[in-house]
């Protein structure tokens, strides 16, 4: 009997079969047992029908990517077998509902796949509700990999606690029936067994929720949004804790209303954030310029999906980077940050709250569906390193000492002391027209140039202290892989699986604080590299374009994926090996 360090598990079926709910429970069960988790869902934009999957990687080591191959496929319908048979690993298992789907023994045998046709529906009905096929299959999988039901019972109980004792009991029974069926009828001669591991204090969380927590930790008190996949779970989570945290969370009429409410609140002194996807940002774009001209600090989150237009709304892509850097007419300062995983989303969410107030300008956080909706295990977040910095926000006593207060007074660092409405002696016009120091509309040549320079200076000030790109791997290596955002997980997971000799030849650069662009750092890295490989989830290599724009260096070697799917770990391992 072989022990294994990881398991790639996928459940498939129609929307309404409880695919996501099963996946979430499955993840929690293994997380509580101490394993590391990364999950990924595929679903069309509809509520019933269609084909849905929940793919989950269980590992004894930290994991932040999905594999193409699946060790155990749970097929709640025929489509799940037909669509995913090719992904099932040699020697893997397909658990399927033998009343709903067929799998020919010859086909299974061709890949030495163990075909477990179970009476999932029958067992679910026996437990009290035929809808519980998902829970029966969790029990069956747990038996396969030699886990017990202690933790699973606890997870199922807490998951269904809100639905009453009867539902809890039925689900616990469903779990046991699935578990016992496999224990009784199947010998542990395949797949078995996951190496046991010590329990830890991790949480299982998405980057959306992590970002929200980071913002909350750093004093977010005003969040406005209009639902848009895949950003909506930020809204849902913040709304669920709004009363508890004293945060105003508003679902506004449209994205233009969203950003203008946030700007009104931010100008009045709130720590405001908005969240949406690319299409929503497109609607907010004119107001992005308004934020910059009125010097109103606001955090805008763009959780990218596949565009343009409605595109593939529930799939993943990194197609908005250049849009975020250039959106809105004219030149103005903005900060753009791209976290690569849940922990970074938490850190960036907190940091952005400060940056918006310190630099009095919009701060854009750009992530994507892969990490925004996918959950991963991380140690509980700490607030130890978070400090509130409200920049040059004046206290009343300070403002009272200023004669002839000017909100947009010129200053070397570009940042002017700020009053907020309600303060005595701080009157000004937050003006969408070009304005003078008081905020009065002013179209004089010199004033215009002074104010343009003043606003630009803020970005130059930030550029002096901003975090520089991260380097992983061997910093001296001459082969350089460049990425941004969510590809961090798959790249680092793949890198760890290279042999030592290969690892020595490669360094990996992550550009996280993307705008202002860290030109000097990136130029130096590129000039000291012999081979460069760019990895992005878009069709044009947008970071590559940006690097060319800022450094004059063109990267020819690009590995791009734009079919709505994230990079599979196998693809990246192969690419790095060839590199």
């Amino acid at each position, binding site marked *: 009997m072989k022990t294994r360090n990881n398991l790639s598990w996928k459940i498939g079926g129609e929307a309404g079969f409880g695919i996501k709910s099963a996946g979430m429970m499955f993840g929690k069960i293994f997380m509580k047992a101490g394993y590391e988790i990364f999950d990924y869902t595929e679903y069309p934009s509809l509520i019933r029908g269609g084909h849905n999957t929940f793919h989950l990687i269980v590992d004894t080591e930290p994991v932040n990517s999905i594999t193409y191959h699946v060790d155990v496929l749970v097929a709640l319908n025929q489509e799940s077998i037909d669509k995913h048979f090719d992904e099932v690993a040699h020697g893997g298992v397909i658990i399927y509902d033998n009343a709903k789907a067929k799998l020919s023994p010859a086909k299974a045998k061709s890949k030495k796949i163990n075909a477990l046709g179970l009476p999932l529906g029958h067992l679910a009905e026996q437990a009290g509700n035929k809808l519980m096929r998902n829970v029966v299959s969790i029990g069956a999988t747990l038996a396969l990999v030699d886990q017990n039901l202690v933790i699973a019972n606890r997870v199922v109980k807490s998951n269904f606690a809100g639905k009453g004792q009867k539902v809890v009991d039925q689900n616990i029974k469903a779990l046991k029936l699935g578990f016992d069926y496999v224990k009784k009828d199947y010998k542990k001669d395949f797949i078995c067994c996951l190496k046991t591991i010590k329990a830890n204090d991790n949480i299982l969380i998405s980057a959306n*929720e992590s970002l929200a927590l980071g913002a909350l930790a750093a004093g977010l008190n*005003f969040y406005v949004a209009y639902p848009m996949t895949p950003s909506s779970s930020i809204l849902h989570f913040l709304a669920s804790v709004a009363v508890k945290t004293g945060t*105003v969370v508003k679902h506004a009429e449209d994205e233009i209303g969203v950003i203008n409410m946030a700007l009104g609140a931010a100008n*009045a002194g709130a720590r405001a954030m908005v969240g949406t996807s690319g299409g929503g940002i497109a609607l907010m774009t004119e107001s992005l310029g308004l934020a910059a001209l009125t010097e109103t600090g606001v955090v805008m989150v763009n959780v990218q999906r596949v565009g343009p237009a409605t595109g593939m709304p529930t799939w993943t892509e990194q197609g908005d980077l250049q849009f975020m850097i250039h959106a809105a007419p004219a030149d103005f300062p903005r900060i753009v940050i791209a976290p690569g995983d849940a922990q970074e989303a938490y850190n960036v969410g907190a940091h952005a709250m400060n940056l918006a107030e310190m630099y009095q300008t919009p701060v854009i956080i750009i992530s994507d569906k892969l990490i925004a909706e996918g959950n991963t295990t991380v140690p*509980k977040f700490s*607030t130890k390193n978070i400090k509130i910095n409200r920049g040059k926000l004046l206290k009343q006593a300070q403002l009272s000492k200023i004669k002839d207060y000017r909100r947009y007074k010129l200053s070397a660092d570009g940042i002017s002391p700020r009053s907020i409405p309600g303060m005595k002696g701080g*009157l*000004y*016009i937050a003006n969408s027209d070009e304005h003078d120091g008081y905020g009065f509309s002013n179209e004089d040549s010199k004033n215009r140039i002074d104010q343009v320079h003043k606003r630009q200076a803020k970005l130059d000030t930030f550029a002096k202290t901003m975090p520089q790109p991260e380097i992983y791997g061997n910093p001296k290596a001459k082969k350089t892989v460049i990425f941004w955002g969510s590809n961090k997980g798959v790249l680092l997971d793949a890198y760890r699986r290279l042999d030592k000799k290969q690892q020595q030849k490669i360094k990996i650069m992550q550009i996280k604080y993307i705008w202002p662009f860290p030109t000097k750092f990136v130029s130096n890295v590129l000039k000291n590299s012999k081979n460069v490989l760019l990895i992005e989830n878009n069709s044009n290599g947008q970071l590559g374009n940006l690097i060319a724009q800022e450094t004059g260096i063109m990267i020819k070697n690009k590995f791009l994926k734009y079919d709505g799917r994230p990079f599979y770990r196998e693809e990246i391992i192969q690419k790095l090996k060839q590199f």
Partner: protein
Amino acid sequence: MKHTDFETTYKSTWCPGCGNHAIALSMRQALAELNLKPDNVLINYGIGCSSNGANFSKSYVWHSLHGRPVPSAVGAKLANQDLTVLASSGDGDAYGEGLGHLIHAIRGNADITYIVQDNKVYGLTTGQAAPTSNKGYKAKSTPEGIIEKAVNPIGLALANGCTFVARGFAGDASHLKSLIMAGIQHKGFAFIDVFQPCVTFNKVNTFKFYYDRLYNLDKKKDYNNKDLQTALKQSQVWGNKIPYGIFYQGKRDVYGVNLPQLKGQALVKKPVKVRDINNLMKVFA
């Protein structure tokens, strides 16, 4: 307070005889008579001739984009309920670019006063037809006459549950001042559409046009402005006689007033501190 306490020294950019002068004066007088302090007043302007008044208002001012003064006003009021928050814009902002925001602010009944300076023309962009231009109105963008029927702002506000619906007239500044005072004192969304003759571009809806037609509901002894049906009926009156004054005033919970997070103290007056998130992570454990 004096009305001049609310006036800056910025030189006016309005045409001589423009209705905006009287509306701005009425706003300042209303604020002064209510003894509000400029430091505690926030006026959200749109973009257009009327919104250029942003520069003449001595208070906190948010000069937004075209069509957007209302959502920024709603956001500001949620953030600091202690402020007196007004929005002021033209009919292009209110009924063209920003119509959606207006209806939703009305639904929510946010405690702000919205003064729409309705001249039935696009003044700042040299006289094109506005959403409130009467059908057949000829202008640069509609040389054969506008095909659409005019928006009915009063009817729209009433139909969507606005709790204070009034129409003012720049030619009756003292009455307008009283309307604005009543609007500010009203708990909820106060909507005041103001007829504002544009002496440069609108040769139809002149001061005389209104003097010949307007009758004041506030002076009609038998008019009950607490009755929505009566108000709706009056909102449909247009032609030789046109009503102005308070069409309707009702009561409804003010937006946000029932939010526990806004009880006691304005949001922005609570200190910004590092928040303990330990309890918030329990759902992920």
